[in-house]
């Protein structure tokens, strides 16, 4: 069977599975649509959270990012996992105890302020929409690369699938499809990794192979360092960026992760407070399986690529690979444009170098996509990688779309404009909001605004500087009042936006940047993506100062905070 047919079968099978789950898990109440009836087992929720969290970028691009950045990419590995420690200890159990449906709802109730709730809704929608554009693009790209369809066809197919299970099932349908999607994506990610690790280091566990040695006894990482230096690149294991920037960047990603609403609402689906704590641990186990495999995939695939195009020494005239002798996978990925060769010195050989005489352009996504072919794995594994990439994009898109649609139907409609709406109509509104959100996301996926590439910085910056501090102070500091919270959120948000726009252009409009986006121009060398940490500090400080100068929160709010801090009122107290 040829690869094309096989890919259609595997992808078609997974899609049929998702639709089957959608029909089985139809939501019949707002409680099911918003929070899956709060009946999801903590391990199952951990798995769903992992799929919710790991996006098209985690699956397709992260290993390549690590390959090219080496040690400096550790900020993503630590930053995108360390946030779960914060979720488990600072947010998830208390927000679960609060027992409502959305993140803005907590902020609105705790700070007894519709203004605070609206600020939170705006942050949520901007962060989630910018994030979902990348997923929509990921779906289109995965389709066009593996199934050779038009980008639009792929995008519409993906939208239709999400439409079926998200509109029908809400959080309930999304939860169970995410569990299936996790299984597909983790299998697709680890199988090629196991073989590439086995081939290179003799160890079938990539997490151990990374520290292992090659056939000649040299450790892999040492050999990779040496190979890269020979080609003119920096050492893989060397630190290239500034230390302060690395620390703040990591911190911004951690608190941004903890503050992203589509992740937080997953913890509303477990039955108990104790389940919310355990579930964060399980989520990190399932995320960790991919995140600890990624550095192995990145380094090993990069080494394979370098050795393929440069089998001999750089100094020797015949050290570089002859273009005519390139392997089949090289040809396959040339047709997609992920590998581009230009024979500048007309010697018929591929010179892969750092600098002006480089003849090979490598797209970082190839480190994952071409892996099964480089490791000479059978076609069904390649088909699986296609299904895995689609599962990663679909699961994250669905989670984001749910966060957006609940903010509209529950926070704006039920909370502010139509408080007397019946449950039946609210459920209908939630389904309509979901359908509308899918349309908007699809439209933006087809016509991505010019700033699409910058959006990750924006989403994490917003979550880190506005949402995370507001949630944490709401639980841990009883004295923060309505004015303090609103001023804090706006101060954190505005300072972060200002800093991002300063270097990337006002509203990302090209040519409007106030200064070139270079380390030399950055304040203390802090990159715009790392500024969320500073914005969060500004949020904390201004909220505390303003709250001290204005009236303290009323007594019932103090009681609300005391109430969410304990899983259940103690047994003796329930007696009277």
């Amino acid at each position: 069977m040829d690869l094309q047919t096989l890919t259609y079968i595997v992808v078609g099978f997974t899609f049929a599975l998702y639709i089957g789950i959608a029909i089985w898990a139809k939501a019949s109440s707002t409680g099911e649509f918003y929070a899956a009836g709060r009946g999801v087992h903590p391990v199952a929720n951990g798995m769903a959270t992992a799929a919710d969290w790991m996006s098209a970028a985690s699956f397709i691009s992260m290993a390549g990012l690590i390959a090219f950045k080496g040690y400096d990419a550790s900020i993503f590995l630590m930053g995108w996992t360390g946030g779960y420690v914060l979720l488990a200890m600072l947010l998830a159990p208390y927000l679960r105890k609060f027992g409502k449906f959305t993140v803005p709802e907590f902020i609105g109730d705790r700070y007894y302020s519709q203004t605070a709730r609206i600020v939170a809704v705006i942050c949520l929608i901007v962060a989630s929409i910018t994030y979902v554009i990348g997923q929509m693009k990921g779906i289109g790209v995965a389709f066009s690369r593996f199934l050779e369809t038009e980008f639009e066809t792929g995008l519409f197919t993906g939208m239709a699938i999400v439409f079926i299970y998200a509109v029908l099932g809400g959080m309930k349908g999304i939860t169970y499809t995410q569990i299936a999607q996790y299984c597909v994506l983790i299998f697709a990610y680890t199988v090629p990794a196991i073989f590439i690790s086995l081939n290179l280091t003799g160890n079938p566990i990539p997490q151990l192979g990374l520290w292992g040695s090659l056939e000649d006894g040299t450790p892999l990482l040492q050999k990779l360092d040496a190979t890269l230096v020979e080609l003119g690149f920096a050492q893989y294991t060397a630190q290239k960026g500034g230390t302060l920037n690395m620390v703040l960047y990591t911190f911004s990603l951690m608190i941004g992760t903890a503050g992203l609403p589509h992740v937080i609402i997953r913890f509303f689906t477990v039955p108990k407070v104790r389940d919310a704590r355990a579930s964060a641990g399980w989520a990190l186990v399932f995320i960790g399986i991919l995140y600890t495999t990624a550095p192995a995939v990145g380094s090993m695939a990069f080494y394979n690529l370098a050795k393929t195009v440069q089998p001999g020494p750089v100094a020797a005239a015949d050290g570089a690979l002859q273009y005519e002798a390139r392997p089949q996978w090289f040809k396959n990925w040339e047709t997609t444009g992920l590998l581009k060769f230009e024979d500048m010195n007309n010697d018929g050989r591929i010179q892969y170098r750092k600098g002006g005489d480089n003849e090979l352009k490598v797209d970082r996504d190839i480190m994952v996509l071409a892996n099964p072919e480089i490791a000479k794995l059978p076609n069904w594994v390649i088909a699986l990688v296609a299904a895995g990439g689609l599962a990663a994009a679909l699961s994250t898109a669905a989670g984001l779309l749910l966060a957006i649609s609940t903010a509209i139907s529950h926070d704006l409609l039920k909370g502010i404009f139509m408080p007397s709406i019946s449950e039946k109509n609210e459920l209908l509104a939630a389904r309509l909001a979901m359908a509308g959100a899918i349309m908007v996301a699809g439209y933006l996926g087809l016509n991505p605004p010019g700033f699409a590439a910058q959006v990750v910085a924006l989403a994490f910056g917003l979550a880190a500087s506005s949402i995370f501090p507001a949630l944490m102070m709401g639980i841990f500091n009883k004295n923060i009042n309505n004015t303090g919270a609103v001023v804090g959120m706006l101060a954190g948000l505005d300072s972060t936006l200002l800093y991002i726009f300063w270097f990337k252009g006002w509203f990302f409009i090209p040519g409007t940047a106030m200064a070139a986006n270079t380390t030399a121009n950055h304040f203390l060398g802090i990159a715009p993506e790392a500024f969320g940490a500073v914005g969060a500090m500004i949020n904390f400080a201004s909220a505390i100062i303003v709250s001290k100068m204005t009236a303290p929160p009323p007594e019932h709010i103090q009681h609300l905070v005391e109430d969410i801090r304990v899983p259940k009122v103690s047994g003796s107290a329930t007696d009277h």
Partner: protein
Amino acid sequence: MSSPQDTSGQAYWKANIRLVSIHLVAWAFVSYFCGIILRPVFSGIAVGGADLGFWFAQQGAMLVFIVQIFIYAAQMNKLDREFDVHED
């Protein structure tokens, strides 16, 4: 505001804050310190072709994160029972 139940609630919260603080120190130590700031200090300790700081940054910190969430969850389950605020 000073019924026995309130003081017990405060003691529970204080015990929780103590646990969270210890865990956050460990969390920051393995990532920011071992993985980034102190990496040059540990550069002499080799771990499979790289050094200890590199290992923490690319693998060790993540493993510690996982373990510490489960430890915290177990500690809190115990605390919930001690203060009789457990759910079942």
